[in-house]
C-alpha cells in the first residue's frame, strides 16, 4: 500500500519539505477523553513529528503543550490576531452549552475562565475551515448521550458555518491526518450527506468486509472469537460507513475489530453509542416515555398483542354465535329486503326523523 505522503505528493516523491507553505493549525480539546489526540499521535506515515514540524504550523494541541497556563493559551490569541481566516481549527470533543458553557473550561484568559463554547465559537468564526475530529465533536457521542446533563452539542450545532466531520471513537490517524493534509493542499475533500470525507467514509464496512461471504451464505459467529460473520452478535457493519476493513488499525494496516473476532460497534455513526447499544444485539434499545426497550422486544410484544387480539376476537365471535351465523349466512341463498348504509343521506335523514320523534315524545 502506498502511504499518505506518496498519495498526496506524488510529485515530491514523498519529500514533504519541498512542498508549499505550512498552514497554521489549532487543535482544541473540549469535552473529550483525548482518545482522538492519542490516535492522531499514532499516525504512521506521515508521522506526528512530520505533521507538526513539516506539514503544518501546528500552534496548539492541548494534549502535548510544553507550556501551561496563560503562556499556552496566549498562542491562541496570537493566532487570532496574526492569522485570521488563515488557520485550520480542529475541535476534539463535544461542546457543553449549559450555564453558558461552564461545564468545560479549556483554560483562562485575562484571569477569567475560557469556556469551550466561547473558544469554539470565537475561533470557529475566524478559522479558514473547521474540522470536528472524533465522533463526539462530529455528532455528539457519549457526552451528548441521554440524559445529557451538560447539554452538550456537536461542533456543527454551536457554529453557523459548515464543519467537516471526521468521526471515529477514536478517529483513525489516517482519517484525520488525511483530511487535514487534503485541506491544506487540495482544499475541501468531497463530503457525504453527513459532511464526512468520502475518501474515508464512502462505503459501508459490510460491503468491504472480509467475512462478507459468510454473511451471504448464512454462517454466523455465535460468540466473539468465532471466525465467521458477526452479524448475529450485533455487528453494525451494515449501517456503518468507514474503510476499516481495507485500511485497518494498530499503527495502520494490521487488524480491525471483525478481523479480531468482535462485531463492529459503529463508532463513527451519528447517535453512537446510544443508538448502537447494546453492542452485541442486532437492533438497538429504543427510549419510550418511561421505559427503554430493545427494538426486537417491541416486535415480540407487538406480535403477542396482535395474536391475543385476533384470538380473543375470534373466540368471542365463536362464543357469541356470530361466527356460526356468518357461516350459515354464507351457505344459504340471500334473503330479500333493503339495508340502510351508514354515513349516507338516507341514514342522515332517518336519524333526523328519529331525533324529531324523540323530541316530540319528550314534549
Amino acid at each position, binding site marked *: 500500500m502506498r502511504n499518505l505522503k506518496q498519495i498526496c505528493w506524488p510529485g515530491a516523491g514523498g519529500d514533504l519539505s519541498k512542498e508549499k507553505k505550512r498552514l497554521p493549525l489549532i487543535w482544541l480539546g473540549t469535552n473529550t477523553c483525548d482518545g482522538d489526540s492519542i490516535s492522531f499521535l499514532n499516525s504512521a506515515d506521515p508521522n506526528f513529528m512530520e505533521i507538526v514540524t513539516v506539514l503544518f504550523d501546528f500552534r496548539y494541541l492541548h494534549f502535548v503543550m510544553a507550556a501551561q497556563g496563560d503562556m499556552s493559551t496566549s498562542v491562541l490569541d496570537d493566532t487570532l490576531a496574526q492569522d485570521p481566516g488563515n488557520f485550520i481549527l480542529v475541535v476534539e470533543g463535544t461542546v457543553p452549552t449549559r450555564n453558558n458553557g461552564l461545564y468545560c473550561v479549556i483554560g483562562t484568559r485575562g484571569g477569567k475562565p475560557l469556556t469551550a463554547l466561547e473558544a469554539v465559537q470565537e475561533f470557529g468564526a475566524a478559522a479558514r475551515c473547521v474540522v470536528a475530529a472524533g465522533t463526539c465533536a462530529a455528532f455528539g457521542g457519549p457526552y451528548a448521550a441521554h440524559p445529557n446533563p451538560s447539554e452538550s452539542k456537536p461542533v456543527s450545532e454551536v457554529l453557523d458555518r459548515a464543519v467537516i466531520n471526521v468521526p471515529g471513537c477514536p478517529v483513525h490517524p489516517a482519517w484525520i491526518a488525511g483530511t487535514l493534509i487534503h485541506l491544506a493542499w487540495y482544499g475541501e475533500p468531497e463530503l457525504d450527506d453527513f459532511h464526512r470525507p468520502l475518501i474515508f467514509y464512502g462505503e459501508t464496512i459490510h460491503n468491504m468486509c472480509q467475512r462478507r461471504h459468510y454473511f451471504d451464505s*448464512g454462517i454466523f459467529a455465535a460468540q466473539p472469537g468465532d471466525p465467521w460473520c458477526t452479524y448475529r452478535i450485533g455487528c453494525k457493519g451494515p449501517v456503518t*460507513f468507514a474503510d476499516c476493513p481495507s485500511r485497518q488499525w494498530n499503527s495502520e494496516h494490521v487488524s480491525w475489530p471483525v478481523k479480531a473476532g468482535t462485531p463492529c460497534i459503529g463508532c463513527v455513526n451519528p447517535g453512537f453509542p446510544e443508538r448502537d447499544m447494546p453492542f452485541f444485539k442486532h437492533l438497538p434499545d429504543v427510549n419510550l416515555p418511561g421505559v427503554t426497550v430493545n427494538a426486537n422486544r417491541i416486535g415480540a410484544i407487538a406480535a403477542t398483542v396482535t395474536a391475543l387480539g385476533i384470538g380473543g376476537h375470534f373466540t368471542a*365471535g365463536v362464543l357469541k354465535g356470530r361466527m356460526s351465523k356468518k357461516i350459515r349466512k354464507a351457505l344459504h341463498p340471500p334473503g330479500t329486503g333493503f*339495508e340502510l348504509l351508514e*354515513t349516507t343521506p338516507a341514514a342522515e335523514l332517518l336519524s333526523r326523523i328519529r331525533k324529531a320523534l324523540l323530541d316530540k315524545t319528550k314534549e
Partner: protein
Amino acid sequence: MRFRNNLLGIRIKGVKTFRHNRPLRVMHWVLAPAALSLMASGLYINKPYRNFLFKNMNDARKTHFMAQYFFGLYFLARGYYAIKTRGYRKLFPNSGDIASLPKFSLYELYLNKKQPKYPKYNPLQKLLFIFFAVLFPLQIVTGSALYSTGRLQFLSRPFGGLGNTRTVHYLGAVGLMSLVAGHMYFALTESFSKLKSIFNGYFTPK
C-alpha cells in the same frame, strides 16, 4: 355502468353488486404477494439464524430486493390511481366515518348485535388505510436508504443515520405486520361474499 346498488344509502339485498373494479383488484394482487414476501424475508434478515423459509441470507435478501420493486410499483400505481379517480375520498375517513366509529366499534366489541353497513369501507378499514398510507412510503424511504447506501444516503439524514433508519424500518415493519394480520383476519371472517369481491369484483348483500 355497473350496478353499484346504492340509492342515496339504500341497498337492495340479494342482488349482485359491483364492489372492486379490475385495476384495483390487479393492484391488490400485486401488493399482497409482494408485501407477504417482504415480511417473510424481512423477518429472516432480522434473525437469519432461525433457518425458516429461506436457505440463507443471500436468498432472503434477493427475495426482499425483488419484492421491493413490486411493492414500490404498487405504491406508485395506487397513488396515481387514487389521485386520478379521486378515490382517496372513499379510502380515508371523513367526519361521518369518525362520527360512526363508536357505533361500529360497539358492534365489533360484541356490545351491539346489529351490524352497521357502509357504502364501501367501514370506519375501521378507513383508519387502517391511513396507517397504510403513512407506513408504505415510510418503508419505501427507509428501505431505499438501506438498499442504496451510497447514492441514497440523503434519505437517512432525517432519521439521524443509517442505523436509526434500520431501526425505523424494523419498527415500521412490525406495525405493518400487525395491521396486515388484523386486515387478513377481518377479510377472512367478516363476510364470505365480500371476500369473493376482491377476486371477481362482485358481492351479494345478504
